[in-house]
């Protein structure tokens, strides 16, 4: 029963989602919206599961002073302080919650995002090393595309931005579409296996 019920639930909702795509009637739209609403409701409760997991794990690390427990202490303190101020003073304008979000969390997120620029440079350096003729070709194409995206390319010759556009719109797009077709078919096949209960590994069973 522990396995059969999830498979039945999966089949019913999977089949419903498939059918509703072809049925524009109000009954179908409203049922679909109800399912989406329930997903949101369930998500909020599952977030609680996540928070409990985080608090339990962090508390354990702090009490046992395991390696890196200081990070857990800061993380846990942040969680508690944000929750307290959120409930106490609210989350609107001119509240400590929003102030902490805007001046602590948002800059930290931006800092992480900005790291991407440096990582792109290092990854590009590795990717474009001309060790074989394929890598050399990749380097050449990359140079054309990069130059074609900046004003310098147009300044040198109008052929550079034109070539860059052709590379992006023709061979690159063809390769992307090949990937999309493969991904689409893989998605259909995996979904069908899950809906019909052929694939049950996600339930923990092979």
């Amino acid at each position, binding site marked *: 029963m522990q396995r059969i019920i999830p498979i039945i639930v999966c089949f019913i909702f999977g089949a419903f989602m498939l059918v509703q795509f072809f049925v524009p009637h109000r009954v179908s739209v409203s049922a679909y919206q109800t399912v989406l609403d329930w997903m949101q409701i369930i998500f909020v409760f599952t977030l609680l599961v996540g928070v409990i997991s985080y608090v339990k794990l962090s508390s354990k690390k702090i009490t046992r002073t395991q390696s890196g427990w200081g990070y857990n202490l800061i993380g846990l303190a942040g969680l508690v302080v944000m929750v307290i101020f959120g409930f106490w003073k609210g989350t609107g304008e001119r509240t400590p919650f929003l102030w902490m979000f805007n001046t602590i969390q948002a800059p930290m*997120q931006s800092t992480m995002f900005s790291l991407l620029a440096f990582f792109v440079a290092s990854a590009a350096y590795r*990717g474009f090393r001309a060790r074989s003729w394929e890598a050399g070709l990749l380097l050449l194409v990359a140079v054309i595309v990069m130059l074609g995206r900046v004003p310098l390319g147009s300044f040198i010759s109008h052929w550079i931005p034109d070539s860059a556009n052709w590379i992006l719109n023709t061979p690159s797009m063809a390769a992307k579409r090949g990937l999309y077709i493969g991904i689409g078919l893989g998605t259909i096949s*995996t979904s069908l296996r899950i809906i019909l209960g052929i694939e049950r590994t996600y339930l923990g069973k092979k």
Partner: protein
Amino acid sequence: MTSPFNFLAYEQPFFCEIMRIHDLKFLFFLLLFLVFLFTFSPAYPQNPVHLKAVDTPNDKGESITLALEGLSEDPAISEYEIWRATDMDENFQLVAKVSSKETTYIDTGVKDGIRYSYLLKYRKGADVLVSPITGPVISRGQWFHTQRVNVLLGVIISFIFILGFVRYAKKAKKLYIRPISGLQAIDDAIGRATEMGKPILYSAGLGKMDRVATMASMNILSSVAEKTAEYNTPLIFPNYDPVVMTTAQEVVKEACSRAGHPEAYHPDNIFFVTQSQFGYAAAVDGIMTRQLPATNMFLGTFEAEALILAETGNSIGAFQIAGTDSTIQLAFFIVACDYTLIGEELFVASGYLSQDKQVLGSIKGQDWLKVVIVFLILLGGVAGILGFNKIIEFFNVG
């Protein structure tokens, strides 16, 4: 030769002199010309504004689409008013005002099953002009989206192929699937971590359980966890989504039991981190730099954090296997990881690793569907060249 109209010369000499009608053919063309002038002459004005009302097709109901035809861009007409009446109440009421640039108006203020009539009113100077009444029209919700027949056909064909091959696979002795280097490397990756005495870090990225890529990731996790349990290698799995976390815990627990080492399951190693994208990236980067895993596996849905994770993993010298359905992030994984599962390879992983006949059959069906798609692409190309636009239009999705 005497013309049959020569008598005019005697009775109406002046007229005949001007027109010089000497031929029957000429008279015929003159008549045609007069008919033409009479039909298209502005001296006989038609009401130029016309309204067409139809039940909005392929919708949930409570909607009528109005086609506004012949609206003039005359600056003297500032706007057009759409008026509506029902059979029950024949008094027309103003519904909306539109400019002359509009060609359609969708009236969503109607109810299903009621007969509605429409007319258009506009002012030109001091005159109030009214279009003919159109209707009655009844709004209804449709039970089938007629512009998605092609999708339905595609789904049916896909189902026939996939289920047909699943059925075939049950009877077949062996099904060949081409070697996928990224999946073959999983054994080496686990072996490396075991020899080095270091953990394996697994991440499903930002995907939730409603993503097929996350489902595929869970399928791979099952095989990975079974092997790590066998070799007693720690498996760390920081999570972005709590549902993925609980699913992963269940998958790993079952895999450990299947391997005969239930004690190898440590729920604390599969934990929730945060729902913030870059917060998650920071946490996983921190875990990588502190615990120095021998192997990183990034399998699932990834966005901008993909390169941050993969480059950090690369900097600590970890052996990395990645796979995602995001084509943009694939390029980053290819340059930063040792092996990358490209696109569909992620979805076939569970069948490849488990060698389950039914799953392998569905993969075969998927491959034959590719052949069908290649044929359709060629057909579309030929149809486009020959100008058979109907064939091309058939593939448009509404």
